């Protein structure tokens, strides 16, 4: 026991004692201006180092402790403080302890004229033996360019560059049943006014832009669909693509008019950029950045009373591209 005490005292003296307090006078030639010892600041640095050490150890301890249910905050505080204490120690060293002198230096010369000239000559003289310089340069550039194109060609394999059919394909066609989130067929009588439903094509991949539909029901008197869509909304049930024609987000908001003076119409709203579509008039844009109406899907009701598609969308689904108004969805 007393042995341990001796060791501790010896270690303490070793740590605290200021060995070589007066540096050996090496007056011959100094690089830096001389500075006086600053024991108080030195003590501060030691304290900060100690604090950093404790915090770092605490981090390890918190990590090792299995009992804590959610240690993220404690881990953050301990590691963060360890870094901050260390930073503070460096700052005291920088501002109070380290020998600081202001230096003056010439900015480097802007130009090296001799070298510039030599380089120009070097390049010019290196090509002296060519007689048809321009032709050779042109041919070389052509070869390099062609090789560049060749090397980039495999990139075309990344995707269907020319086959635009992928933008027009939909899983919908006449007779395809609509199913809900749970995969069960949607009965027409379960669709109510004042809310909206999400529907999918039965048995098709749901993770394609043309799959999801948004369904709403409006009083038939409120409908004024474009010409040629007379039978598209049996019992006032309307189906639109759920994908906004502006930027491809899902139309996840249905505004039923609570302030008739300002916003008289029910509307489908995209939460990304607030494109607002009018379900009563065939998905036309009421407000916001969308440049095309929402594609409408014609519906019919089968003998069992379930909703089915009566054809394909009125136009291509999703955000606009150069051919979006030239072709029909397939």
């Amino acid at each position, binding site marked *: 026991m007393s042995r341990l005490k001796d060791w501790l005292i010896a270690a303490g003296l070793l740590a605290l004692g200021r060995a070589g307090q007066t540096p050996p006078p090496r007056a011959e030639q100094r690089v830096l201006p001389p500075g006086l010892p600053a024991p108080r600041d030195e003590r501060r640095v030691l304290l900060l180092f100690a604090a950093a050490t404790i915090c770092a150890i605490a981090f390890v301890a918190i990590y090792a402790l299995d009992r804590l249910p959610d240690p993220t905050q404690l881990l*953050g505080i301990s590691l963060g403080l360890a870094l901050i204490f260390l930073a503070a120690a460096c700052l005291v060293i920088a501002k109070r302890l380290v020998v600081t002198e202001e230096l003056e230096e010439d900015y480097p010369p802007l130009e090296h004229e001799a070298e510039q000239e030599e380089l120009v000559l070097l390049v010019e003289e290196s090509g002296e033996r060519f007689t048809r310089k321009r032709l050779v340069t042109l041919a070389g550039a052509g070869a390099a360019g062609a090789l560049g194109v060749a090397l980039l060609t495999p990139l075309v394999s990344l995707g269907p560059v020319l086959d635009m059919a992928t933008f027009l394909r939909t899983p919908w066609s006449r007779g395809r049943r609509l199913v809900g989130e749970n995969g069960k067929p949607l009965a027409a009588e379960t669709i109510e006014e004042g809310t909206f439903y999400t529907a*999918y094509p039965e048995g098709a991949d*749901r993770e394609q832009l043309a799959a999801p539909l948004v369904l709403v029901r409006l009083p038939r008197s409120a409908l004024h669909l474009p010409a040629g869509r007379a039978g598209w909304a049996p019992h006032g049930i309307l189906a639109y693509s759920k994908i906004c024609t502006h930027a*491809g987000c899902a139309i*996840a908001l249905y505004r039923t008019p609570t302030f008739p003076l300002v916003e008289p119409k029910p509307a489908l709203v995209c*939460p990304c950029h*607030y494109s607002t579509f009018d379900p009563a008039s065939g998905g036309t844009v009421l407000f*916001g950045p969308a440049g095309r109406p929402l594609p409408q899907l014609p519906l019919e009701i089968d003998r069992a009373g379930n909703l089915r598609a009566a054809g394909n969308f009125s136009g291509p689904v999703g955000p606009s591209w150069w051919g979006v108004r030239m072709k029909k969805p397939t």
Partner: protein
Amino acid sequence: MIARTIRYLDERAGAAPLLKKALRYVFPDHWSFLLGEVALYCFVVLVATGVYLTFFFDDSTAPTHYTGPYRPLDGVEMSHAYRSVVDLSLSVKAGLLIRQTHHWAADVFIVAIVLHVLRIFFTGAFRRPRELTYYLGVTMLILAVLEGYLGYSLVDDLLSGMGLAIGYAVALSIPFVGANLAALIWGGAFPGAPSFWSRMYIMHVLVLPILIGVLLAAHLALVAARHHTQFRESPRHTERKVIGLPTFPAQAPRSIALALTVAGVLVLLGGLVQINPIWLWGPYHVAEGTNGAQPDWYLGWLIGALRLVPGFDLVIGSYTLVPNPFWGGALFPLVVFGFLYLWPTIERRMTGDRRAHNLLDRPRDNPWRTAIGAGMVTWVFLIFIAGSADRVFVTFGIHYVSQIWFYRVAVWVAPIVVALITKRICRELVAGERVAAIRKQAEREVATLSGTGRRD
């Protein structure tokens, strides 16, 4: 011991002259010079935490069902990518700390770069002979924004999926080639081929970081080659002589302190301030969206622009020349970054000033530049703010459509007003200084005449 190490290095690498030069390199001192350094240290933190994250991330979009400690997601179908990040956050010890620190570091990284660019712009530090340094810096800003976008998109949570859909729409909207380009990048129509995820992943963890690292090295090398600029703080600060603290011993501990502070603050943020709690958003599905969707701050200006543009596609016959997202999502950033790239040339043409500059302008010293810069900042900032109109509607009940109409006008009027006011302020500040100088001079003369003043 020190002598031995130095001798060892000198004999084997001939390093002594180089080391001496590096250690005695002079840094002019001004608080605003630290901004670039903050960005540098954020990048270091990003690489360190990012490497750790890759040890856990799974880049597959194949579906799986969640089982784990977070009950609300029990049995929910999700991609392996999303699941691996949920697991990293909620089941890996210290995983959430590292992930949140990484996310915070990305946000602070871009804040620091933007402030750094503003400092460079408003003090004229981009002028000859430092144009290349500036161009590299602007390029790194673009890469950093792209890198951040890819980083949070990889997670495949609901918010990031919506962000990807918007990115896809912006790619589609590029005139003539948009659809073909998007099909190339995504490997087909949205949400794309499964390999799209590995493409994003390799870009995020290898290609872009290396590109940023290389540009960063070139940026720093160019700074060192031409030396730092400095303010005219005293008559001793001239175009010829740089005055400041040497790397060693004075600058090194300061810089290390800054590095540790940046790391410390980021870790504290990562531990204490929740960011992007993806388990609350849920996995992304094409058919799902969430209200009040806001991206990370550095994309706020783009969402604002996308929301402000009136609803139209530019159509010729049945050919859609410019789909709507192009204006806000592509043209707007193109104009802003184009302005940043072209400004040194524009200013040189306008002022005819082709001289080399080592001394910085204070913003007031160049009223035209400051006015145009302030106008530009106002323009971008207002569009950024417009992106929060939906939150303002929810929080304060201010009618959304009216807000958008207000911004549609304000973003064009306010920059001009701000530019004019800024120019006036600059002129007045300079005039004020001149008056003060004249008054001082007069007082000195009066004092000399009456024989009471110090003679100097």
